[in-house]
């Protein structure tokens, strides 16, 4: 599949309230191309709630239910159930949530919806911070990253949300990255065809939050994959498989790029390099990633 093959239809209208270089609209454009018109989005509090622009206008061309920060998966259960009883078929019920609304405050609603086998797609937009409230730590924030609430760098490693979701034994889990739109598109298309709960997590580098210049959004995402910081995988029928560059890494066909390349691009990791190189923390990050890949190898 090539970029050319992606549909022309646009469901995100230009002139929205998004920041210049915003990865959310990049991701949404591709995701909605895959989902198409027969889609209802449920959106908790997060940056997309702002991007929509304000009453009485919206920048989106699919029906949207905004909902409280922690409530998206539960509200989607209601939407899905309501449609079922009312006999409305083949509508994609999709949660579009940030990592804060997924890893932290929304994890309970999500876990519950997975457990009760809700028929929906849950998409987590992972920018590894709370950007909407001005860049605070989330459960997805990586170790050592600066945020306004982890001024000296976060002390804990990020939650492994993929693993947590897979532990729920749902039919489909996938990771993606805005820098690989064909891959993202294919994954959403696949999720549409499966019944029950589906979970897709998209890595979305945020220029002000990660502190890089806004033209580098896609590049930073690509490097996350190439350095192995962000793996691209799918989980189906209880099995994991890897995609694209990540597949090559897993199979040992390419070597991951050094993680420092990715860290150095981002101001949020500056304290690893300035005033002097923090060998200890860099080593921990390197080890963490290496262990993750080892773990992956043992699983496939």
């Amino acid at each position: 599949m090539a970029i050319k093959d992606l549909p022309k239809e646009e469901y995100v209208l230009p002139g929205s309230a998004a920041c210049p270089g915003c990865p959310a609209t990049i991701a949404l454009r591709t995701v909605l191309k895959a989902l198409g018109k027969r889609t209802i989005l449920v959106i908790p509090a997060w940056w997309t709630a702002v991007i929509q622009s304000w009453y009485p206008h919206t920048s989106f061309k699919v029906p949207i239910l905004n909902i409280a920060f922690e409530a998206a998966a539960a509200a989607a259960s209601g939407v899905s159930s309501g449609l079922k009883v009312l006999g409305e078929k083949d509508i994609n019920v999709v949660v579009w949530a940030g990592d804060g609304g997924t890893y932290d405050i929304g994890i309970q609603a999500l876990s519950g919806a997975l457990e009760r086998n809700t028929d929906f797609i849950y998409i987590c937009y992972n920018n590894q911070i709370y950007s909407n409230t001005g860049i605070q730590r989330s459960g997805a924030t990586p170790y050592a990253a600066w945020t306004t609430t982890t001024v000296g760098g976060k002390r804990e490693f990020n939650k492994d949300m993929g693993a947590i979701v897979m532990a729920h034994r749902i039919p489909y889990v996938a990771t993606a990255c805005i820098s690989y739109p064909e891959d993202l598109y294919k994954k959403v298309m696949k999720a549409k065809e499966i019944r029950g709960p589906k979970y897709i997590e998209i890595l979305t580098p945020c220029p002000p939050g990660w502190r890089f210049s806004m033209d580098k959004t896609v590049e930073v995402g690509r490097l996350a994959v190439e350095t192995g910081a962000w793996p691209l995988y799918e989980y189906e029928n209880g099995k994991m498989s890897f995609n694209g560059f990540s597949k090559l890494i897993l199979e040992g066909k390419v070597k991951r790029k050094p993680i420092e390349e990715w860290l150095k691009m981002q101001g949020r990791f500056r304290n690893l390099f300035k005033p002097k190189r923090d060998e200890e923390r860099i080593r921990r990050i390197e080890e963490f990633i290496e262990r993750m890949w080892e773990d992956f190898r043992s699983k496939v």
Partner: protein
Amino acid sequence: MRIVVDTGNHIAAKAVQMARVDVVAAYPITPQTTIVERIAEYVEKGEFHGDYICVESEHSAMSACIGASAVGARTFTATSSHGLLLMHEMLHWAALARLPIVMANVNRAIGPGWNIWSDQNDSISQRDTGWIQFYCSSNQEIFDTIIQAFKLGEHEKVQLPVMVNYDGFILSHTSLPVKIPEQEEIDEFLPKRKIKWKLDINNPITHGNIIMPNDYPKIRRAMQEAHENAHGIIKEISREWEERFGIYHGELLELYKCDDVDYVLLSMGALGAESKVAVDEMRKKGRKIGLARVRVLRPFPKKEVIELARHSDLIVIDRNISVGMEGALFTEIKASLYGEVDAKVYGYIAGLGGKDVTFKDISKMCERVMDGKYGGYMIFDVEG
């Protein structure tokens, strides 16, 4: 029409079934649990047309109701006490979103310490959420009010969620006789839900995005108008029910022996029924006292209360306390009367945490007032 003897909770489940609810999302909590258990049984037996979502918390229950209602489904939930409190944010949400969800709340005191018995602090604490609130005094009223609540909430001039409250154990677990109309009669009274807005792929709107300061007050104004509309519509519905089924529980207030009295007692919920016994007893002794049972707290029955106070002094018993102030009903009644009439209004708090309040207690409270021996304000349970 047939008569069954069953608990308030089972009767509530029956009402939900007969209202042809599409989606129920609820979470167990004492003393609400037997409602959801009964609905689960209906589902199992194929006696329920809708879907029952087993959620993992009350917060999710209300969120799921919002989702379902937003696509046009007739939606119900039930809870109590801590469950209701946990929904608080989503109660505001449902009301501001103008979704006609109906909820049974089985009144129960708030902890710590854990206390599973009736008091109304749970629902009183939701008086600022924009929900319509009913308080029932019998199982018949529970049945009738739940059915009516859908009609009211879904009314095009209302479009608001409705909370139907009744006392934990005292009604929820007490069997009483209830007249049940035929399904067709209910269907005639309560047709399919008519929808003002919904999530519709052919008409893609966004609900609930940012609204700026200049527009926001309009949303609140509209809610207030809807409550004002509800005031009249509650009356219409009560009368229609009476015409169809011959059962009448009053409108916003139920007046009991209020003609030509010096005093009117006001109370809510099961206490309102017990108060009838008290009034009967006091009448026997020649006391000129009647009862106005407050069925509806939101919209607040201002006009009705003023009308009452034109002719009598009022004695208010609250089964709640807004700590740092006083009983909520007492406050709101006085506020309604202020500048309108100058009847005397006396307030008591009684029945907190399930403390039993007998008709003798009620008579004692009233007689103390009528004998001129009470001027203050007290928690009868402790100071009685």
